[in-house]
């Protein structure tokens, strides 16, 4: 409770938390589309490519205002992305190579500019290198307002063209055949992605910003099969990790914001991969176990049925060793017999052997009947 009191009472923490929440939501939403379109690594390229834009914006204007630097970053990120697409379209260079090339070369160029700026005889350049790893604590109310307004604009546009983006993600060919301007939608989606990445650079940094795009969406994908729900969950995860990471980082000395947020995201992803209903690893394992037990039980019932059919007396008991021999390949005889006995389908005879009850006989007959009717 003391922590919550701090959160609402402390101006810096409130600012940082609000900013991180905004950019978590926006990146969660846009990241969903990127992940579904198999463009997860595009975020990596965009954020690295933004670095020279930040440096150039400062060199050209001499201003360190957030909006100026963000505009530069967005322009560079946008140019980098279009370059990737054009290289892939015009040459035989593959997508991954083009991505790696643009990412690293733009970053290298940005580094040249940054080191050049740092050696200039003016003192005002300090702070540009926080863009590498991000520094949540340096967020000002003004920055948060910028993030909030840009983020809101991005979200409104996504809402406005929701149907078109959905089509673009799942069936672009169909969308084209319906007459939607696919190319422009593609460019629009990338522009929005660039915007959402750029507003996070100051907090998370260029190096790790890509995780902010991929992780919430990849986690949210595990919990649902519907786009609307996925986007909402992704936004929630983004905000959760953003706020958590940024606050922990602000409260602890020598704990950079970007990596802390990424570790929060990683924890969310791990939990989602393991525990999400239907798709999660644990869930899948449990389902397979239930199915395997069911099949084993049915197989033991069928074995008993086969044995019963070969004897005059249908209630004749059969020793467990016979059933074990018959069940080589599926196993689980003891457990299955116990389950069947509880269901009243088999019983133990006086000499400790097993036989079908009348109900078991009809049930087994029904099962084998349906099996024989099968293909």
């Amino acid at each position: 409770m003391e922590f919550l009191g701090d959160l609402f009472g402390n101006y810096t923490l409130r600012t940082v938390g609000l900013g991180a929440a905004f950019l978590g939501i926006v990146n969660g939403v846009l990241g969903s589309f990127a992940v579904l379109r198999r463009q997860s690594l595009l975020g990596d390229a965009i954020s690295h490519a933004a670095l020279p834009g930040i440096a150039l914006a400062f060199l050209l204007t001499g201003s360190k205002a957030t909006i100026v630097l963000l505009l530069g970053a967005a322009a560079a990120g946008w140019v980098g992305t279009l370059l990737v697409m054009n290289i892939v379209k015009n040459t035989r260079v593959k997508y991954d190579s083009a991505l790696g090339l643009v990412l690293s070369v733009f970053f290298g160029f940005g580094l040249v500019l940054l080191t050049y700026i740092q050696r200039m005889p003016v003192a005002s350049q300090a702070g540009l290198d926080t863009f590498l790893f991000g520094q949540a604590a340096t967020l000002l109310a003004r920055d948060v307002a910028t993030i909030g307004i840009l983020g809101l604009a991005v979200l409104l546009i996504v809402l406005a063209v929701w149907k078109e983006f959905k089509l673009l993600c799942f069936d672009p060919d169909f969308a084209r055949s319906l007459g939607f301007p696919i190319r422009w939608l593609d460019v629009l989606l990338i522009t929005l992605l660039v915007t959402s990445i750029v507003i996070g650079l100051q907090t998370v940094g260029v190096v790790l910003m890509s995780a902010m795009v991929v992780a919430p969406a990849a986690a949210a994908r595990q919990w649902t099969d519907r786009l609307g729900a996925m986007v909402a969950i992704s936004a929630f995860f983004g905000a959760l990790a953003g706020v958590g990471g940024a606050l922990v980082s602000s409260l602890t000395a020598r704990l950079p914001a970007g990596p802390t947020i990424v570790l929060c995201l990683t924890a969310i992803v791990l939990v989602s991969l393991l525990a999400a209903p239907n798709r999660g690893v644990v869930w899948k394992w449990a389902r397979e176990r239930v199915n395997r037990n069911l099949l084993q039980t049915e197989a033991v019932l069928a074995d008993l049925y086969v044995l019963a059919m070969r004897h005059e007396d249908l209630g004749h008991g059969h020793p467990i060793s016979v059933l074990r021999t018959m069940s080589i390949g599926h196993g689980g005889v003891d457990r299955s017999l116990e389950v069947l006995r509880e269901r009243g389908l088999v019983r133990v005879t006086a000499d400790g052997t097993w036989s079908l009850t009348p109900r078991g006989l009809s049930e087994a007959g029904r099962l084998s009947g349906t099996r024989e009717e099968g293909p």
Partner: protein
Amino acid sequence: MTAPQVEIQLIAIVVAVSCALPGTFLVLRRMAMMSDAISHAILFGIVLAFFVTRDLTSPFLVVAAALTGVLTVSLVELLNRTGLVREDAAIGLTFPALFSIGVILVARYAGSVHLDTDSVLLGELAFAPFNRLEVMGYDIGPKAFYLMACIMLLNVLFIAVFYKELKLATFDASLAGVFGFLPGFLHYALMALVSVTAVGAFEAVGSILVVALMIAPPTTAYLLVDRLSLMLAVSALLGAVSAVAGYWVAHALDASIAGSMASVAGLLFGVAYLAAPGRGLVAIALRRVRQRWEFAQAMLLVHLYNHEGLPEAVRENRLPNLPDHLKWDPRFAERVVATARRRGLVETRDSLLFLTDSGRATAMEAMVG
């Protein structure tokens, strides 16, 4: 040139060549982004090993880095195999996590010693000559040079010994498997090699620019040549050129050497992208223009051939009719006819167009193929 300058350039060349060789296979195997993942993730291994040895130049670091690289690749494949996330997302989830752990460990526990995030991420080649290797009291040169030379030799040896296997596994993995070449083993060996190269290079150029040196020269070479052996050689050469030119650009601007090397490597790609013979943008544009003219020529000849010797030829086979009939701009039509006449395919009599014998043959060829 002063001695440190020569030494820096030598180190830069060795780093660039070491990166370009395994990079060629990454580019061909469509695993370029794996270099990004590995070069970031090895920070985790380097930091752990550093806490154990307390020495940044310990060979133990190289081993730790190789293991971390293989761990990264395995994690990506493990994630991918659950079927819950696709490969691109698996890469995008794995390396930021490992890198973040590395950065946090450095920030919290290694702040006082010589290992900070900037030097890992960005490298500083200018300081490399300060760290000397002494043998029996004699100074024989910078340590970084010998370390990278060993790694380069390792790369060259690996590629030379497994050349045939790598080639087949790269271009036809299933056939390589049928032949018993163990493409899986080669895959992990290559990844280990990439990791070792990245850890050797990170001190000089930083982890992100390792990616530039691994991807940019081979991608450029990919636009220029068609043979694997040539591609390896051209990549290495382009890497070396980027290294030397990058050094002098950085010298002139007093800026980051690694950044300039990456920029020059990118610039070289830009030149190839524009001007590569047969594949560059200029070549593509020229080919489009030529094809447009060839097609227009064929259209003209076929048109004339269709109406040749028929009553309507008087109306159809004349220049003023062409823009209307073939939907051509009048000036374009004039130029097409002029070219055809110059080539001896068409002749004009009484403002009517007639096919010459070779024009008729060309028209028939255009129609029949």
